[in-house]
């Protein structure tokens, strides 16, 4: 009796090399088919499905080992991780705050962009660099100066209304006195009845006043005050303030009205400087007149 099928005493079937050749051919053919066509996908799918429970079974001991390892995590590891997570949380919170700030700034910039260009005036957008640390004056420094064409006296507005006026110009920056500065005033007109008034700052953050108001002047809470444009500094029609309350005269012959500024005085980071374009206008006017 032959000991093994590979070397039979009497050759009955194919020899080992011949069978090997057939197997090689078979393997090459299915490899080629599998490479070129999707026909054997069924075989793949079926065998994979059959192997799936086996895979899960085989992964189990590893999972157990991992879980057992995790159970014995040291206290120090947990503490470290806790500290790390805490730091991460702080960082993310700071990031989130930053995001809100950016969103708000974006909204304000969009409002600035949407400002309709006023005739004879060109707007120059500027960023507020710093707020002067002066308890008596309300002033900010913007990042545009003489080099960018800022001139002293130009009104400064934001998306909502008047903010202040350029009071000093430096080569690459300028100082803006806010509307709330005690020294600052703006000629306005009551939108309701056209009454001309002068609004001044009080030195408080969010409060303006109309000093020396005639006792019988028709000013009521809720009135809108816009620039009148008669002073030649502020263009007409910029929203300035809304009347909050009026005070009857007490020890003086004049009444007083308190107003709330409409522009974001001391609130935003971007403003627009309105520069007059007077020269060219005058030239054309001069030609047309005769």
């Amino acid at each position: 009796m032959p000991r093994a099928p590979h070397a039979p005493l009497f050759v009955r079937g194919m020899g080992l090399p011949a069978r090997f050749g057939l197997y090689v051919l078979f393997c090459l053919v299915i490899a080629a088919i599998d490479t070129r066509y999707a026909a054997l996908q069924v075989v793949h799918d079926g065998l994979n499905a059959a192997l799936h429970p086996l895979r899960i079974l085989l992964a189990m001991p590893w999972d157990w080992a991992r879980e057992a390892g995790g159970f014995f995590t040291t206290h120090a590891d947990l503490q470290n991780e806790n500290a790390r997570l805490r730091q991460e949380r702080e960082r993310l919170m700071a990031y989130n705050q930053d995001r809100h700030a950016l969103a708000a700034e974006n909204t304000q910039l969009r409002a600035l962009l949407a400002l309709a260009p006023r005739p004879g005036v060109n707007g120059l957008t500027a960023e507020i660099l710093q707020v002067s640390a002066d308890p008596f004056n309300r002033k900010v420094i913007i990042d545009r100066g003489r080099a960018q064409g800022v001139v002293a006296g130009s009104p400064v507005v934001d998306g909502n209304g008047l903010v202040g006026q350029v009071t000093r110009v430096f080569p690459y920056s300028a100082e803006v006195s806010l509307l709330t500065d005690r020294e600052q005033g703006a000629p306005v007109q009551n939108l309701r009845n056209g009454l001309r008034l002068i609004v001044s700052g009080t030195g408080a953050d969010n409060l303006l006043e109309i000093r020396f108001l005639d006792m019988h002047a028709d000013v009521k809470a809720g009135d809108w005050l816009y620039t009148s444009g008669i002073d030649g500094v502020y263009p007409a029609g910029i929203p300035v303030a809304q009347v909050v309350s009026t005070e009857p005269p007490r020890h003086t012959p004049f009444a007083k009205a308190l107003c709330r500024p409409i522009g974001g005085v001391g609130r935003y980071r971007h403003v627009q400087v309105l520069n007059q374009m007077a020269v060219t206008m005058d030239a054309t006017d001069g030609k047309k007149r005769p």
Partner: protein
Amino acid sequence: MSQRPTRHEKAFLRKGAEMAVPATRARVWSLLGVGLALNLSPWADDLRWLVPDFALMSLLYWGIHAPRWAGLGTACALGLVVDVARGLHLGLNALAYCTAAFVVLMLQRRLENFDVSRQGLQLAPLLLGKEALVLVLGLMFAHGEVDWRWLASGAMAALLWVPMAWLLDRLTGRPIATPGE
């Protein structure tokens, strides 16, 4: 008196256990299954290229000790399963397994009489060559790039052959072959 074997007669008798446990189809298949399971185990990804092909090692072991049960057909079937499990094109590992089994069957009578370390030495080129063959076949059948580190698994298999074969020999009760006898 004449019943006791003489000194010359004694040399022809085996030492240790008389006979190995016979290799049945069930034993062969269960060992192949264990090899396959080891192959499919979720090894760490960075070590994956070092893990030897246990299925091939068990196939070759039975190819040496039970060629009746671990022939070309078994090799081909096992190779196809490994192909599917590894997500390769069908036939790559099957061809490599067939080739390895063919060589082992050709050398079976010689390999059977060597001890495990010498077997390992002779099988090393085969185990290495199988990995190389799979990689080359993979290149041929349009796998764009080949990670040649996987050849290391062949070397690892050659190294692990000795302990594995030794362990299996003990499990099947095969006598320890002493060289030169």
